[in-house]
């Protein structure tokens, strides 16, 4: 089965250090779409994670997101993650029909996971977690 819409998600490393970045998306209660990028330099943008979702009448579905960052060096080296985990993303932020076929650039720092949707940004706090939790 396929989705009737998809978007390319890029992720910018704003953690201030080299980092392993993890991004996960879930549409409705479907299985997740995940990607990991290792040794991403500060300020660099990686991707895309191609995510599928549905739009249209008389159907309902939300988009859920999770981001983990293992910051390897720099002044804020450590492990950070947004709410949830890779298999159960905890941040709801709608992908709209206008995003179909588009490239969206999200950003992660040690304090905030920012999702720049076509309709405007959504944000979610990043909190300190264990190394395992940052990549799950």
């Amino acid at each position: 089965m396929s989705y009737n819409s998809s978007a390319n998600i890029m992720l910018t490393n704003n953690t201030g250090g080299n980092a392993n970045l993890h991004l996960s998306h879930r549409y409705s209660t479907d299985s997740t779409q995940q990607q990991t990028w290792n040794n991403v330099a500060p300020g660099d943008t990686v991707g895309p994670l191609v995510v599928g979702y549905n739009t249209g009448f008389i159907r309902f579905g939300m988009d859920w997101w999770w981001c983990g960052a293992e910051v390897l060096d720099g002044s804020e080296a450590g492990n950070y993650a947004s709410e949830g985990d890779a298999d159960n993303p905890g941040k709801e932020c709608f992908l709209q029909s206008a995003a179909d076929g588009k490239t969206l650039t999200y950003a992660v720092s040690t304090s905030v996971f920012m999702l720049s949707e076509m309709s405007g940004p959504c944000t979610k706090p990043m909190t300190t977690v264990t190394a395992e939790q940052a990549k799950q």
Partner: protein
Amino acid sequence: MQGSPTDVAAGASESRYSTSLESLRAWLDRHLGQFMPAGTTLDGPTVKPAVEMLFVLRGLRRAKVNPASHKWIDSVVDRLWDPAEAWLRRLRWSGLVNLARTRSPSTANLLLIPLLEDLAGRRSIAHERVRLVFAEIPWRDCDDLGFDLAFACDLTDVRPSQRLARRQLRRLVADQASLHAQPSAYYDLTHAIFLETSMGQRRARCPGDLRPELDHCLARGLASRLRTADLDLSCELAVAATWSLPDPSAPLRAGIHATLCTVAQTTDAHGCVPCLHERAVGSPFTFAGCYHQTLVALLALACAADLTETVSADR
């Protein structure tokens, strides 16, 4: 005068869920302003809820609901008519033809007009224009047309889509493992039935050889969606089962019954049907988090009467 067995059956079902139905109608009445098309563009934020409301009202017209329900449908249609006509006057029609030629999904928002016309029994100022726009949709491959545009072309007689719906239904039922692996695809199954029946307005012609598999597929989908408290999709599956299968199996009937009971309990507790299968973020009672489930729950509960009647008549 004594009612016929059909009247009695329909009345019994309406009565069983009458409190819940009344609560759902009251919630929709209170939020009707958020279903009014507004702005100057085809894809304003209220257009999608408005079209979805009209889809459900079309289905409710089919359901064996009591006269009070029909009056409610008429009153909603009356209140939507003038804002819809005002919105149509503000649209830039010259650009809409190009949207149709590129098969833009936004074009389907014009479904609002034929749906509203049919419910109101009146002719909109945009009656001809809408059909001209839909006639511009190019037909590359029939199977790649989504539900929204296919329904629009079918409803306006630009292109009948029942055959497309049947092909989609057969393809989906043949690949149940994929449906189960990606549960949101069950909406494709319900929409194929909605398209074939034009939201319950015409009889589904489900081939005999497909019925057992479709029955199993719907029952499996219902069980799966109920386990995750996905009431929106559960309600759509229950409605699709009612409209497509004259004599559901015992497991499917049990799934439909469980859906209706759960929805009625949820409605009684909240007055609407909030999104429960996702982890609620903030208030679960926002309009965006409630309206769709509330609409399809209303349809599912109203269709309970249809199910009772159809099964009684077949036996």
